[in-house]
């Protein structure tokens, strides 16, 4: 499990969660996004198209990251949630807190509007 990050040609910073997002690695994701913020990135996508499952600590980390990004004047969007992952967001009503796109490309494109 791990994270890969890249900058889209349009300037959107995309972090991909590879494997699981759980209590054992949530801090790593928080650090990755904080580092991006420290480098001036303000349009950020976290993509879950290669993610197996997320636990409540992972969901909590996303909540914290979202807050941090907002506080620093940024905008966080999520993408690539399959049916199972999306059900976790719906159960916890976190689907109402995040802007969620089907794909990373759509999430990146949504910043252009």
């Amino acid at each position, binding site marked *: *499990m791990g994270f890969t990050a890249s900058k889209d040609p349009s300037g959107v910073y995309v972090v991909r969660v590879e*494997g*699981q997002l*759980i*209590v*054992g690695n949530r801090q790593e994701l928080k650090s990755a996004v904080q580092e991006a913020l420290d480098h001036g990135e303000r349009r950020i996508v976290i993509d879950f198209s290669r993610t*197996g*499952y*997320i*636990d*409540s*600590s992972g*969901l*909590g*980390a996303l*909540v*914290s990251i*979202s*807050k941090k990004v907002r506080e620093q004047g940024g905008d966080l969007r999520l993408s690539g949630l399959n049916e*199972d992952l999306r059900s*976790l967001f719906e*159960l*916890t*009503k*976190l689907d*109402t*807190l995040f802007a969620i796109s089907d794909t990373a490309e759509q999430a990146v494109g949504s910043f252009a509007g």
Partner: protein
Amino acid sequence: MTAPLPATLRLCVRRRRVPSPSGATVQVSLRVPSDVSCIEEVVDLVTRHCCSGAWPNRKLRFNLRVAVAEALANAIVAGNHEDRSKSVEVNAEVSGEVIRIKVTDQGEGFDPASIATPLEPEELDRPNGRGLFLIRHLVDEVQFNPQGNSICMTLRRR
């Protein structure tokens, strides 16, 4: 491919036949160190043993993985406070129709009724409090022992 089990993991798998058309009952027992880095591997191992053959349902498999990961995280972090001198017992039993997984820590226990889940719009930015709520929605039945340091989760094949 997952990394080898840490030496501190103790795994015992027993299979026995039961007089039922559903076939064998599979029992898996593990002693897990209080280390969150073990969770993913233990979840994979328990899922592999519980979901072989008769449990191909993708949704059940997903629910099982999240519920076990959640119960392990609660046990290691909230129960044992990540004290490496303490461990977590995982016992899983699979019959033809039912998976039953018990996760027991060496902590003082807690009152499950005392956990409030942040579902109101003004509470959604709370980073914690969703674990037990998720478990209750992902499995068919949840029971705690009186001390509150052992959770038993039951999933049924539909």
